[in-house]
């Protein structure tokens, strides 16, 4: 089966205020606490375009290699719904803010490119809350008027893996730019996937089915897998596929028809008369791009040149703040050790505590201290992994943790030798067995030594000494 997919991605922009009003664009407030007369569509209210919203779209446009509209206009899209206060949504139609462009991403170490059709700005609707009191539905308009950038791709994606890899790349770009918090659970980054299947590349395009309601990459993957098997079976049985919108039901792991006569909708688009056309000049674009950080695409190439693997370079480059850590640390430390640490213990801790690299409790110097101590072998890597946990959870510096918890590496040869002598003496049985060829017992002696030294023995030195002593006694 040939798989064709195009995606519409709703990116909730991280502006301080709403798209067309000065109400705060915040989550988690009491219902309607962030809704003004304008957001509630009170009589006489008018929208005003949030310039910050335009700037964020322009920043993304730069990285998507899109054409930034010289003139952009807004339209009204009409439908009745309780959470749509004005009876229309302000959106864009004939002259959207961004046109064209593409996103490069990697899949199984291969470079791929997905083209963008356009991206347009619009306002979000509110939320209907059903049964908040017995038998009563309410409307919460806090979300009404939140700015969205809807990115529409060309049908350039030809496998489920491509869809997911592309979306992950786009997700990292918008969060890197900090124009979106990327929270898929809360709907800050929502993808509606249009897929169609056909027997092979030469067959005419199949019927399009739109999949919605997938709020994680995992669910996108699962929804697509379900949908592909459903449609494949239908095509093989020569059953017609209905053009429709289907919702993913995560509890049942299947897609379900929305049973919505979408084709019957007539949105009666027309120019929003309250908002004159906006002319975007070079000065405005320059101003918007002032805050543009170093591109992750450039960083990625640079990191590979510095000696990172493709995979590691990808992950670190597309995480803006991890990249900052990496670059700062690379001035003093080996890049491979840095990447091992950033992607290993530090990432593990940040996942555990649900923090991003933007707000790690560890500074660059904190991590640098650990890496320096590892390098001069004053601590073992096992110790380092314990130390970093104390530093993170107790908010203490490397020095303090080492001093308080007594972390130091025992690398005095005489002292270690003496300890080993004692152990060998105390375990004549094991020693005899070892000598009779049960070499596995080497580990037993290491364990004893570590126990005796509270884990502080320099492992390399311990190994060497132990080997030496064991063979010495043989003689």
């Amino acid at each position, binding site marked *: 089966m040939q798989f064709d997919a195009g995606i519409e991605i709703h990116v909730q922009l991280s502006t301080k205020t709403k798209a067309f009003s000065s109400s705060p664009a915040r989550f988690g407030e009491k219902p309607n606490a962030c809704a003004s*007369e304008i957001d*509630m*569509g*009170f*009589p*006489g*209210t*008018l*929208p*005003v*375009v949030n310039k910050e919203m335009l700037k964020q779209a322009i920043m993304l446009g730069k990285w998507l290699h899109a054409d930034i509209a010289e003139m952009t206009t807004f339209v*009204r899209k*009409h439908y*009745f719904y*309780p959470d749509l*206060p*004005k*009876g*229309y949504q302000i959106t864009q139609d004939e002259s959207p803010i961004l046109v064209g462009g593409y996103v490069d991403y990697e899949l199984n170490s291969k470079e791929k490119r997905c083209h963008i059709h356009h991206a347009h700005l619009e306002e979000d609707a509110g939320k209907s809350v059903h049964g908040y009191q017995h038998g009563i539905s309410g*409307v919460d308009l806090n979300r009404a008027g939140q700015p969205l950038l809807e990115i529409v791709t060309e049908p350039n994606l030809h496998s489920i893996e491509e869809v997911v890899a592309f979306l992950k790349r786009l997700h990292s770009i918008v969060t890197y730019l900090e124009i979106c918090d990327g929270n898929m659970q809360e709907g800050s980054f929502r993808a509606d996937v249009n897929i169609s299947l056909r027997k092979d590349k030469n067959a005419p395009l199949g019927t399009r089915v739109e999949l919605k309601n997938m709020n994680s990459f995992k669910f996108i993957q699962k929804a697509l897998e379900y949908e592909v098997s459903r449609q494949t079976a239908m095509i093989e049985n020569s059953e017609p596929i209905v053009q429709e919108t289907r919702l993913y039901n995560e509890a049942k792991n299947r897609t379900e028809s929305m049973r919505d006569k979408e084709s019957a909708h*007539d949105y*009666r*688009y*027309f*120019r929003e*008369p*309250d*908002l*004159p056309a906006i002319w975007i000049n070079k000065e405005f674009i320059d101003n918007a791009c002032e805050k543009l950080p170093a591109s992750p695409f450039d960083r990625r190439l640079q990191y590979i040149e510095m000696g990172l693997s493709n995979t590691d370079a990808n992950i670190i480059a597309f995480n803006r703040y991890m990249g900052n850590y990496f670059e700062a640390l690379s001035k003093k430390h080996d890049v491979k050790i840095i990447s091992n640490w950033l992607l290993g213990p530090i990432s593990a801790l940040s996942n555990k505590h649900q923090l991003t690299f933007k707000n790690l409790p560890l500074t660059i110097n904190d991590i640098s201290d650990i890496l320096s101590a590892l390098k001069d072998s004053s601590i073992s890597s096992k110790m380092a992994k314990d130390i970093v946990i104390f530093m993170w959870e107790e908010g203490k510096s490397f020095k303090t943790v080492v001093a308080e918890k007594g972390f130091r590496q025992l690398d005095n040869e005489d002292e270690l030798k003496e300890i080993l002598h004692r152990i060998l003496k105390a375990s004549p049985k094991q020693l005899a067995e070892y000598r009779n060829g049960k070499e596995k017992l080497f580990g037993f002696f290491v364990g004893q030594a570590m126990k005796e030294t509270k884990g502080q023995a320099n492992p390399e030195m311990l190994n060497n000494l132990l080997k030496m002593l064991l063979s010495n006694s043989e003689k």
Partner: protein
Amino acid sequence: MMLIQGILMFLNLLVKIMNKKIYEYSLSELSEALQTKKISSVELTKTFLDRIKRYNSTLNAYLHTNPEASLEAAAQADKQLSKGDKSPLLGIPIAQKDIFCTTDMPTTCGSKMLEGFYSTYNAEVINLCKKSGLVNLGKLNMDEFAMGSTNENSAYGAVKNPWNLDYCPGGSSGGSSACVAARLAPCATGTDTGGSIRQPAAFTGITGIKPSYGRVSRYGMVAFASSLDQAGPMTASAYDAAMLLNVLCQHDPMDATTQKLAFCDFTERLTESIEGLKIGIPEEFFAYGLDPKCQEIIQKAMKQLESLGAILVPIHLENLKYAIPTYYLLAPIECASNLARFDGIRYGYRHAKTKSIRDIYELSREYGLGDEVKKRILIGTFASSGAYSKDYYQKARKVKQIIRTDYKKAFLEVDAILTPTTTSTALKLNEKNRSPRDIYLSDIYTVTVNLAGLPAISIPIGFHENGLPVGMQLIGNRFKEETILRIAHRYQMETNWHNLCPEPFKD
């Protein structure tokens, strides 16, 4: 010699003023009286509140008053006056069309849908009036959501024409025109989407100006057709209108369609001569079923302007015939969209017996909205839906551009354009056999101006043999309100039509 002449002129003025009742004072006369403490704002406000009490039941011009709030504002103005505040409009009463949102009085927009609705904020026009010290007397009746030409479409009953109670005062700003004509307020605000300031002004013998689109903030003004709506003053004279425009014409960051223009004092050049000004007379405007008597009166006014030094130039505005269909597509399309918010969910009327969300929409709109409004929502919905959008909406937008170009060309040659305001004098109330088509066609002289976004003023120029006033329209180039105000003022210096108060409303 000069001095004696000056003194004589002053005495003349004094006699004139002394014979005038306070409610007949112009705004500049009121300003003078307040500034010189001849009268206090509280006394003045009481005078008008008394007149409202006495005459409003006859006219039905006011929908809401709040005497307590009015008198409090007046007392505040008196305090400012005693401190020596010289703001020219300080302490002068005004009445507001019920389309402007207010927090201290309901805002119904003439509709049952908004019965008892209190806004949570004040319209920018209301705020600007407050800031300049004007005292709000109350809110004025109007056609529902500003849709209508007779004021009969108000859910709160028709307004009557003070010159003849069997006739309408025009619409949609009928409450405003009747109230100023009968001097139940020295001045009022109106709004004009297709003639709703100028036509009622003409029907009641007062002065009304629709400023250029983008001059006055629409924030807090309940929207009818957003690309055409514009607020403006309705007053006795052009001079009074200029004084109010000084307050109302401001860029508003809350209304993206208002223009950032340097402040100009509209009264400054008002008294300058009109000698050599070229006034275009579009032939097409005098060909469409214009009442012969009205035509005669307009011709007389034209001669008078000529004698004052204006040069009359025949011009052509060929696409006038497309104005009505264009307007009656664009305005309903925007109206259908703007009125979608009246759904019974968040505010306003909700039908009592609703079982589902569909019921809330359908029954609330069915019973909350009047026939004319529903008619226009239907037309607008139809003309903007699916394939019809291309045939109607898109085409209408193109024709709008053509009409604009017509005017642009004309203004290369002339400084202003003179036309009748209406095809006839005021229409009789409760006429059963009026077809909507005839009513719509009667807007022919006014709607083109809205489509082109131009300023236009209607001034009284005499009386028809039926005893009703006749108006004349002067259209200016974009943002050239000053020119048409100057012509109007020059004419009013020579005539007395604008000073007349209908007999039954004199003390």
